[in-house]
């Protein structure tokens, strides 16, 4: 997935690094120091609908051409996450115990058109 440039109109991944110090949460989240809060944004014209965010193969290229030449768009398509990974956190809970856990699907790695 292309990372969004300021003027990128098409579906892309917008990256934001959040430092827990900036949230004032470094006193209870011990590790890591921050994480990537990425999200997907941009337009999904009909010829991109259903594309996995990268020209995966010859098939998807032909499929895109067919869609682009199809006068009847198949409904709207949205820019959504297509790959996400967990975030490992080490934090103090309300009892002062140290908890280590993996939060699933926390970091968006790739975006694509639904």
């Amino acid at each position, binding site marked *: 997935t292309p990372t969004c440039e300021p003027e990128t109109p098409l579906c892309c991944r917008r990256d934001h690094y959040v430092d827990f110090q900036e949230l004032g949460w470094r006193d209870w989240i011990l590790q890591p120091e921050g994480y990537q809060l990425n999200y997907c944004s*941009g337009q999904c014209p009909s010829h991109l609908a259903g594309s996995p965010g990268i020209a995966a193969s010859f098939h998807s290229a032909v499929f895109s051409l067919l869609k682009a030449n199809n006068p009847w768009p198949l409904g709207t398509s949205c820019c959504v996450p297509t790959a996400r990974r967990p975030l490992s*956190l080490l934090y103090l*809970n309300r009892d002062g115990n*140290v908890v*280590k856990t*993996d939060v699933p699907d*926390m970091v968006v790695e790739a975006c694509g058109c639904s």
Partner: protein
Amino acid sequence: QGARSVCPSCGGPTLAPQAERALVLELAKQQILEGLHLTSRPRITNPPTRAALTRALRRLQQGSVAPKNGEEVISFATTTDSSTSTCSSMLTFHLSTPRSHHLYHARLWLHVLPTLPGTLYLKIFRWGPRRRHRRSRALLADHQITTPGWHALTLPSSGLRGEESRVLRLQLDCRPLEDNSTAAGRPRRLLDTEANQRPFLELKIRPNELRAGRARRR
């Protein structure tokens, strides 16, 4: 609202950078709290010292992986009333295992002082909740310790489950097998239960299979 450029997604005016940053930080807070199943950030009343934390994490670092969908918890003994005897102590832990999870691995980490005179015979009891002004205690495990330093003593996870109370009391009853410490007059302390060498529990919990399975079927 920055009137200069247009949002590539919705065509509306884009947010000013500061407004977008504030929105991202708010989103991050919501996302972290949701991911940890918390409604608000925890208010820590008595955090462990950095040194105790570092020592405990260093012990657990070797090869420990947070269980899938589960959690690994380190709980420091918050109060110990080391009685006058050589090494018997009452350790109190505050645990809040979510109802939908169950405990499947438990170890008690103890630091034995170099004053250890030979082999130490250690019994670990769990104190039940007070009923009619009486407390019952159940033997959890017994171990023999022959060297000073840190020891990880396995406890039966079944013995630590149950009970509505969030407070777990463990009593350590131990005696040196060759008790020559009294020969030298006053009995010496053998277990280190203060400050940075405080005993701690290492627990692993994961979602209840039964409930998770039922949820999956549904």
